[in-house]
């Protein structure tokens, strides 16, 4: 119990710390890509810049427009922050640690429906933005909120379908199971990481993740040039800080999910040469390295591509991403069915396939687990 509490607090602190330093990283990456130096005045290489920014946010006047809805105005950033932080709970950060004979899972909760939990939390995240934009009583903020919510709802579909593809292959909704199935790097004559088995699914997921995080080129919700900040136009001080912070936490978590679902999480080539705590620490470091690589990719994309128009956004979401994801799902289903022996008329296989038929594609297996009730 105490160990869980420590992990919760540690995860909370690490996520917030990383999110704070991602703001610095973003500014540095932006600067380098534009042949500039970036912030370097606060501390060596500007390392204290996030602290300075945070301090500034805290001490600014906590302004609220007269016509804004008081409580919703406060709840908005709170929901945004809350939903972005709880998603970190189900991500397995590394293999099990063993300290003093006790096994410590580097994960707050190994929920057997982990990925479903994340999808749910992400959808709640729309409320933070929507409530914030609505409560501001400002047409620009409302525009930003409308755009954000329609965009997130549209792209959630394609994201969900691409997640289902992975779940079908794995047969489990638990992220730890998904990661463990990508053990090592090479398995049975092919790469074991999902990105090599499902490249199209990965691309769809990456694009939808960008859209879900409201990052460029899908940052229509903020749109500095048109909507002067969109849903947080009227916000200031730490409430604005919460919105911006939640965005970076979201980005960090979705990069962690990408590396867990597609890039083997804490698995790395040659991991069988290590064991015990060494493996746990190395695995955790590898996982963070992968996550930060994707954070960098997110920033890289942001400082490369211009923003989509609203109709282009909807066009890509509904007419491109969802059909591609669905076709990919269909093909994956057929291939799985084939390998499980559904199409074979061989008598020997029939008995085996009959058992599978009752629980097609293995998805149901995990639901069975849910019903029996795993300890959360």
């Amino acid at each position, binding site marked *: 119990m105490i160990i869980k509490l420590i992990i919760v607090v540690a995860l909370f602190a690490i996520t917030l710390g990383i999110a704070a330093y991602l703001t610095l990283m973003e500014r540095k*990456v932006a*600067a*380098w*890509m*534009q*042949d*500039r*130096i970036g912030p*370097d005045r606060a501390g060596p290489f500007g390392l204290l810049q996030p602290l300075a920014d945070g301090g500034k946010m805290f001490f600014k006047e906590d302004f609220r427009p007269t016509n804004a809805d008081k409580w919703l105005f406060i709840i908005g950033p709170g929901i945004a922050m809350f939903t972005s932080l709880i998603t970190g709970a189900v991500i397995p950060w590394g293999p099990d640690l063993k300290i003093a004979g006790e096994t410590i899972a580097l994960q707050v909760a190994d929920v057997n429906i982990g990925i479903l939990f994340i999808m749910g939390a992400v959808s709640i995240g729309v409320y933070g933005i929507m409530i914030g934009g609505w409560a501001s009583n400002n047409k620009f903020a409302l525009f930003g909120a409308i755009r954000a919510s329609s965009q997130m709802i549209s792209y959630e579909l394609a994201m969900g379908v691409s997640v289902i593809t992975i779940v079908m292959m794995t047969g489990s909704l638990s992220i730890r199971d998904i990661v463990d199935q990508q053990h090592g790097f090479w398995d049975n004559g092919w790469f074991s990481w999902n990105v090599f088995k499902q490249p199209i699914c990965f*691309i769809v997921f990456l694009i939808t993740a960008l859209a879900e995080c409201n990052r460029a080129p899908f940052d229509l919700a903020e749109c500095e040039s048109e909507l002067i900040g969109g849903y947080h136009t009227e916000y200031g001080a730490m409430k604005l800080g919460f919105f911006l912070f939640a965005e970076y936490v979201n980005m960090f978590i979705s990069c962690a999910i990408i590396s867990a679902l597609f890039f083997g999480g804490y698995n790395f080539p040659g991991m069988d040469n290590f064991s015990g705590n060494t493996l746990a620490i190395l695995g955790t470091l590898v996982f963070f390295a992968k996550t930060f690589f994707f954070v960098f990719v997110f920033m*890289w*994309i942001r*400082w*490369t*591509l211009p923003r989509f128009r609203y109709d282009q956004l909807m066009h890509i979401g509904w007419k491109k991403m969802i059909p591609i994801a669905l076709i990919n799902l269909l093909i994956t289903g057929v291939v799985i069915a084939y390998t499980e022996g559904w199409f074979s008329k061989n008598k020997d296989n029939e008995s085996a396939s009959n058992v599978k038929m009752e629980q097609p594609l293995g998805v149901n297996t995990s639901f069975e687990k849910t019903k029996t009730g795993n300890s959360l």
Partner: protein
Amino acid sequence: MESLSNRKKVVSNKKMTFMEKLYLPAILGGMWITFKHLFKKHNTLKYPEVKREFAPVYRGQHVLKRDEEGRENCTACGLCAVACPAEAITMTSEERKKGEENLYREEKYASTYEINMLRCIFCGLCEEACPKEAIFLTDRIVPTYFERNDFIYGKDKLVEPVDQRVDISKRQLTGKRPA
């Protein structure tokens, strides 16, 4: 009609090919460009520590020159103030008294001389108007202040100290006057 400059571009609304419609190759190409920029030389200078080299014609903070014997050149004729399009220069004149010959070159001098650096547009017309080669623009930058009044420069800041002469030779060569 034939193009004379050869710069005419014909706009076409051709259909995009499949690869172009995918966008991904173009996006990767763009990302490759930004990636190369990560390792390029930064154009930013860390200003207070490193200063950019100015062009010889740079027009910065003014100086009121003294002659070789250390006497002020300015005779408070007011031509600079008349020439100034931003109305930034004011002055009051006074007659030179006995015993001040080592301070002022001619019988009349400026007892006060003020330039409002917030009004000044650094056009250099004062310099051009001056018949006595008294005022020049230099390669020094006017610093920032918190109060507007601090930007009104009096003689204490404008006249060059006798022991720290301001080099205006580059600026002199760029004008119409011979060196």
